[in-house]
């Protein structure tokens, strides 16, 4: 399995777990407060740091087990796969953001729009890495 594919698998796992934890907190806070909580900066900073640390640890682990593969530049096929997966996840991201814009235009709830936009970012990232794995498996 190529280094990029291993990293894509790892990122799907990291983003899914951290995203699920973040939104579990949002739902818990919503039930406690009776309305959607505003975004809390320290909480978001912890969330981002957690992703960076986990991704760096995974990359270091994969690089130690196979250093030559980790240092190899992307070939033509790998570049195409990256462009394709980013382009397709970008369309989903754009759609989700437009859904958020319409939701805000109707309900005028800034906190809700924040959580929708943040979820759109997480979902598009998971999708990008998921599609990368899929295209590697398909041989595209």
């Amino acid at each position: 399995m190529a280094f990029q594919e291993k990293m894509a698998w790892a990122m799907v796992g990291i983003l899914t777990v951290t995203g699920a934890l973040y939104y579990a907190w949002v739902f818990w806070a919503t039930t406690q407060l009776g309305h959607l909580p505003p975004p809390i900066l320290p909480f978001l900073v912890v969330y981002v740091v957690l992703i960076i640390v986990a991704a760096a640890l995974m990359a270091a682990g994969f690089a130690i087990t196979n250093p030559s593969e980790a240092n190899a530049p992307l070939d033509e096929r790998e570049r195409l796969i990256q462009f394709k997966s980013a382009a397709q996840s970008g369309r989903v991201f754009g759609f989700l953001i437009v859904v958020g814009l319409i939701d805000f235009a109707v309900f005028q709830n800034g906190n809700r729009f924040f959580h929708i936009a943040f979820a759109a970012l997480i979902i598009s990232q998971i999708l990008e890495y998921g599609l990368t794995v899929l295209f590697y498996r398909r041989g595209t």
Partner: protein
Amino acid sequence: MSFWEKGYLATAGAVALAASAYAYIIWQRSVELAAVVAPDAASFVTYVAVIVVLSALAFIIIASRDATKTGADDALVDGYDERDRMIGDMANSQSHHVTSVGVYIALLAFIVHGSGNVLFYSVLGALALGEISMCLLRVFHYNRAY
């Protein structure tokens, strides 16, 4: 310049024009109210409709003008080949990053200011910037040899 290049340049112009007009209207209303005005569905839908109509019109006009030229190629519009697809994917993936950075900045601004209206307009601006960059990146990649 190919049909697709001209079409995407025209689309970039249409998005820039519509976004500027929308921003001007919002700015005018906000100055009158002395606060950032809340978005209304009518102006938002009009903004999206203007972009769609202008882009479609631009493609139709360019195609019809090119087709009436002497010695025009029969396969003027339908030639969307492997290179076009690759350029499309490259431009879309790079513009996705532009939009994402814009949305991140908008989210940070919301955390600082707490204004949903500012969040709405800044996210809309990020989408417009992403769309313009996608069109311009396509033109840029078309002019590079792949």
